[in-house]
């Protein structure tokens, strides 16, 4: 569940550079755009959709 296989390269929603998610990719996984270094969240896996990941909040951590 919540895993996608056989991925094609996608576009970074920030800079439109090519981003290749790992395989298999999971929903909520966070990737980094190799060009602009933006953090991207996998918000869907069938098909894979990337969005800018949320900014770190004050209470995030371990």
């Amino acid at each position: 569940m919540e895993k996608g296989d056989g991925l094609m390269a996608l576009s970074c929603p920030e800079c439109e550079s090519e981003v290749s998610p790992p395989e298999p990719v999971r929903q909520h996984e966070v990737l980094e755009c190799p060009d602009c270094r933006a953090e991207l969240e996998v918000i869907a896996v069938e098909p894979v959709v990337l969005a800018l990941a949320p900014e770190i909040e004050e209470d995030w951590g371990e």
Partner: protein
Amino acid sequence: MLSVLLSRLRVEEKALLEELDRRHVAYEVLDTRTLAFRLDELDLPYQGALCREVSHHRAHYAARLLEHAGVPVVNSAAAIALCGDKLLTTLALRRAGLPTPRTLVTLTAEAAIGELPSFGYPAVVKPVVGSWGRLAARLSDDEAAQGVLEHRAALPGAHQHITYIQQFVGRPGRDIRGLVAGEEVLGAVYRTATHWRTNTARDAVTSLCPVDADLEKILLDTAAAVGPGVYGIDVLEDADGALYVNEVNHTPEFHGAAEVLGTGLADRYVNYVLDQVKS
């Protein structure tokens, strides 16, 4: 079925989900950002929950709600509430007789300025809630303290004004991260950095830390003091090698430790979770 609370899938969450997949454990990922609970209709289909939510407040309240519905959560809401607050954690550790750095607490930032000269430098001021060394500042003298504390006083949010200051302890640039699940020490690593903040989130390098009898005891006593669960316990050493418990992390990251200790960490983490939710 197990539920897994999260909103950000880090290396640790991936490893844990892969471990659940490997064992063919049925689970559902619950995104805490979209959950809604109707308190009069809390009939949930979960045997238990693994909480890996990165936001302390969302983790705490999600765990409270699931427990209210009769779903056991690892870690428990009580453990999350306690360990997510550095002051409450320190009080619990001191109550249990564990060594902690000397600590100064004031309820406004301004009140700390007058106390620090007698408390002594260097000291470290930290938010009571927060992680990854964020907003932690080392205070070297009165001048530095005044500047940092005036900035803290200007921060929005009343809880930021609760001022938690520790004596700076340690061989600069190194601390110990011990991982504990229940009554088992999973392992320990040194975290070494050029910066005094040794969080792996700040690119500290990990190396194997032997778990001798003293370290094992302090780790297990710490876990006992905060209640059953899986913890990342940060321990400081002073120049004489004496150990002090610094912090207890209720949703521990272990990617740095796994590089040294191997991939069995997720396996043992999941063992503990499954044991807890079936008992």
